[in-house]
């Protein structure tokens, strides 16, 4: 390649990068503001975004149970609740979706096609429309006000998508692979564990990430079905800071928001290569 062509290519690349940076600037700026505001002291700002004085007092809630205000429970309690919800959803979802996906992919049973289509229809319902009916269902099940109720509802709503993803992954594992495993000396279960499971791991990783994030960010159902502050998750915790009294303490709000985001960002950084592998395999047969 000549020097000139190289320069030309570099120029084009630089233009693209500058363009992309400009486009993402509003987004970067708002997150930057959030982080800076959580450490800013007072209302004096340079360039409208950088605080003049810095403090960690907004982060008091990390070590002081009353740090975010006396009327709120400990943030660790809320974090624990959020983690419980997110992990329970993930575990249930992965367990059910892998089993259902295997059956949908491997077994020809009556009503398989309609059932598969129906799961997709289920996924199309906006959760808000189900709010009242779910309230009544949970009430009669005695799960209203319980985080288990939230897990149940979220798993039910998340399952169709996860099943669909898992079916696609199972479709990608040839029948011959399983049959060879049997003649090689595996039991049916052994073939599943030793031969099929390793081949669908990216799928399991993908639906785990999706379900975990769904649980982590869930607001609506917790807001509607949880009445005890001790059962709050972080999303409702954050909302309560925004909505209490007439003056919002943006310092604390920003600190809690950053705290809420951090695990997700870290989680995403480590798992994004699996997310890239998700394919919504078409319906075969």
């Amino acid at each position, binding site marked *: 390649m000549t020097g000139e062509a190289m320069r030309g290519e570099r120029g084009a690349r630089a233009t693209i990068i500058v363009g992309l940076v400009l486009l993402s600037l509003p987004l970067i700026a708002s997150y930057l503001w959030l982080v800076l505001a959580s450490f800013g002291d007072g209302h004096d700002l340079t360039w409208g975004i950088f605080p003049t004085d810095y403090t960690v007092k907004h982060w008091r809630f990390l070590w002081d149970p009353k740090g975010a205000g006396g009327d709120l429970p400990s943030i660790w309690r809320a974090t624990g609740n959020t983690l419980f919800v997110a992990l329970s959803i993930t575990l249930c979802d992965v367990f059910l979706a892998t089993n259902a996906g295997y059956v949908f992919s491997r077994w020809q049973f009556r009503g398989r096609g309609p059932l598969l289509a129906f799961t997709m229809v289920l996924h199309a319902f906006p959760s808000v429309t189900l709010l009242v009916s779910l309230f009544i269902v949970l009430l009669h099940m005695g799960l209203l006000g319980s985080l288990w109720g939230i897990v149940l509802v979220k798993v039910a709503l998340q399952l169709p998508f996860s099943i669909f993803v898992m079916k696609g992954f199972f479709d990608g594992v040839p029948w011959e*692979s399983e049959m060879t495993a049997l*003649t*090689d*000396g595996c039991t049916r279960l052994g073939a599943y564990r*030793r*031969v099929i499971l390793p*081949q669908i791991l990216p799928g399991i990783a993908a639906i785990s990430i999706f379900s975990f994030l769904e649980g982590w960010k869930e607001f609506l159902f917790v807001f509607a079905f949880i009445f005890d502050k001790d059962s709050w998750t972080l999303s409702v915790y954050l909302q309560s800071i925004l909505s209490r009294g007439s003056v919002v303490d943006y310092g604390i709000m920003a600190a809690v928001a950053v705290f809420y985001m951090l695990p997700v960002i870290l989680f995403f950084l480590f798992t994004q290569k699996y997310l890239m592998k998700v394919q919504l395999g078409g319906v075969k047969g």
Partner: protein
Amino acid sequence: MATIELQGLEKRFGEVEVLRDVSLTVGDGEIAALLGPSGCGKSTTLFILAGLYQPSGGKVLFDGTSMAGVHPKDRNVGLVFQSYALYPHMTVRENIGFPLVLQKVARPEIARRVKEVAELAGLGELLDRKPSQLSGGQQQRVAAARAIVKRPRLLLMDEPLSNLDLELRARMRREIKRVQRETKITTIIVTHDQEEAMSLADRIYVMQGGQIQQGGDHRALYERPANRFVAGFIGMPSMNFADDLTLAKDGEALWIESGGRRLLPISAGGELSVGDLAGAVLGVRPEHVAVSPAPAAGRGVAARVVDLVPEGRELVVGLELEGGLEMRSIVPSTLDLAIGQVVSAAIDEAFVHLFDREGGAAVHHGGHSRAVAG
């Protein structure tokens, strides 16, 4: 290593009958081929042998012991699929060693046997690669190595060479044969490729419509086909058939006619002159239709050249006999022919087969066939 026997095997999938009364025997250390067009039930038979399908009726015997209710993992059978079905998440070494790991063979022993089989299959340097990094031929070798590493009683191969290109196929055929000779594993190969079946197998079972049409070595199938299906299926280009047969007399000479036109002369007092020609279909292989550039004379009949397909050493000639009957002939490619040319096509009664018009069963083989295969 074992003697394999199928007795009156039946298989139905719901309403569909896939196998009907399939019986065969494969001797210890032999290679047998199940040959037939797709959908004939040959793969189903293979999967029943492996234990992947349960037969609806009949018996599967390994060394005289019934395999009913015996799980695939306990049959000690090696299986090679057309798609190879290698485990993508394992290296070549792990793929080949997998059956031994399942048998809980000690680690050093696994390493030793994997190395041994890998060398036999010519995979020495590839052991640490993943299947996706291998060519089709190499994947085929890995699949075969994995199937024989546990020293199975029976090796089953489902269209093992169909995914390979022509040259590689010929080489792999020789290698399968070599490895089989060295290991003496009883082997059953399923294929739709007669060349593959003939070059590999000691004994070939031709299947069609879920039934075995004929079993025998390649010469028996070729020279003495049991019915019209086998006759048409074995041999490339396939056998010529002529219908609507009658016997005609011209002075001293006797002729078989097809559709009222002369086809071939026959000798008086022979089988053909007394048989029931009306209920029969005549078959003759292309190499037994002699073509001479001179117009019809003596024993030949007039035919027009309608098609010429050069195949290197030979030339496949499409002929149209008087009355519209089409035949194919194989002649040396040195013969100078042109499309439209009128030539003489001669058929010798010693090479003629007759099949029952209704059932298709062979009712007569020419003297040549009987001399060869008798």
